[in-house]
């Protein structure tokens, strides 16, 4: 219990919140990294998944990508990228690694969502004379949305975790508070940093949980 009270007093020391290594700065880095990489990986993964799902091609790749992603250690990829020429460009290795690990869940879930759309509905849409792109936008995408959003949620939580690990490889974010704590052999700081990271991850998860509960109302009211 003494460690917890030490961690609490570390957290409530205002000097730890400000400055270059302060909590606010690290939180900002973490948020920025997570949001930017979520946006970039959505831009990369979703069009590919939607087109592949619409055409019904590349299923084996889309589904197996998640399994491959799980077998490759995040930490190894972070360090490998750091040692490539990319490592000389600040946060570039972190951003690339984050995107690499966010793309598989996005791609797999969006693809499976597209394929699980009732084939009868798709055939009915074609019978009504809809073109391929009309079917994609007005029928398949709205029906695939719940699974697609689950993928976004998994990717977001994954991004928060990966961004934390990036600190081990010299990247920014809240993980830096933990690694700095280890370097200083300061257990209170390690625990305080871990609490911040855990709360941040659970908040992201909670935001998506709430958003997902609200989403079906307008998704169902859509053109589907």
């Amino acid at each position: 219990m003494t460690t917890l009270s030490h961690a609490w007093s570390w957290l409530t020391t205002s000097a730890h919140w400000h400055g270059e290594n302060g909590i606010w700065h690290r939180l900002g880095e973490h948020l920025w990294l997570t949001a930017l990489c979520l946006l970039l990986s959505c831009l990369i993964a979703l069009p590919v998944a939607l087109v592949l799902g619409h055409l019904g091609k590349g299923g084996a790749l889309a589904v197996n990508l998640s399994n491959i992603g799980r077998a490759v250690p995040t930490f190894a990829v972070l360090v490998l990228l750091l040692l490539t020429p990319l490592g000389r460009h600040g946060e570039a290795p972190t951003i690339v690694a984050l995107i690499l690990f966010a793309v598989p869940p996005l791609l797999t879930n969006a693809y499976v969502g597209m394929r699980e759309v009732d084939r009868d509905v798709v055939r009915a849409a074609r019978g009504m004379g809809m073109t391929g792109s009309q079917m994609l936008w007005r029928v398949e995408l709205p029906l695939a949305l719940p699974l697609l959003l689950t993928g976004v949620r998994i990717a977001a939580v994954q991004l928060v975790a990966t961004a934390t690990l990036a600190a081990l490889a010299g990247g920014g974010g809240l993980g830096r508070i933990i690694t700095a704590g280890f370097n200083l052999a300061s257990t209170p700081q390690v625990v305080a940093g871990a609490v911040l990271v855990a709360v941040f991850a659970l908040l992201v998860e909670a935001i998506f949980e709430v958003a997902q509960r609200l989403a079906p109302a307008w998704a169902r009211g859509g053109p589907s």
Partner: protein
Amino acid sequence: MTAGQLTAVLPPADAGAPHDCLARNEWICGEYLSTRRQILWDAVVQHLQLTAVSVVIGLAVALPLAVAARRWRWAAGPVLGVTTVLYTIPSLAMFSLLLPVYGLSATLVVAGLVLYSLTLLVRNILAGLRAVPDETRQAARGMGYGPVRLLLAVELPLALPAAMAGLRIATVSAVSLVTVGAIVGYGGLGNLIYSGMNTYFKAQVLTASVLCVVIAIAADLVLLFAQRLLTPWTRAVRA
């Protein structure tokens, strides 16, 4: 890398050993494999031990939790809720939160990995138990099976394919997560990646990373094979 690039990159002092890939700090280096065989072997053994111990303990904890969640409806919510929350906490934070309890030890890494594997195992075992058809359960009860025998002889075997799927995912994830244990000095191959990063040792980082993936794939295949042996009826149905 071409010879032209090499001479441009290297300081003159290193030019005397053009055949030494260690001195040139190349990604792929046979010399590294032969000179560091013992270090690599020790790291692989530690990696396998940490993975195996945590998955076995995880299974031992997850099984009663899943059975309890199946038996008592009120238990399912809390069990799934807690394990999901645990799974959401990033690995580095999880290990750090356990630091005051276990200190810088291998136990800390095992405890963290057990907590992660719980989510995957409990969810899959529970899904397997719930998928057992009610008719099957009633038939067994009609044949005079008590609750314990019903669980051991009917429900658990039928839940095995789903449980094994969870075990495979949990094992592959554990192999990957062990590397993060490097932060407390017990990360198996992760230790080599960590020290390789600090010394900018490319061959060490790449070799250890590739070995991690090889271990993950090998473990997955071994469990797949075990699953085939344990559940011969699933193949008979498919054939």
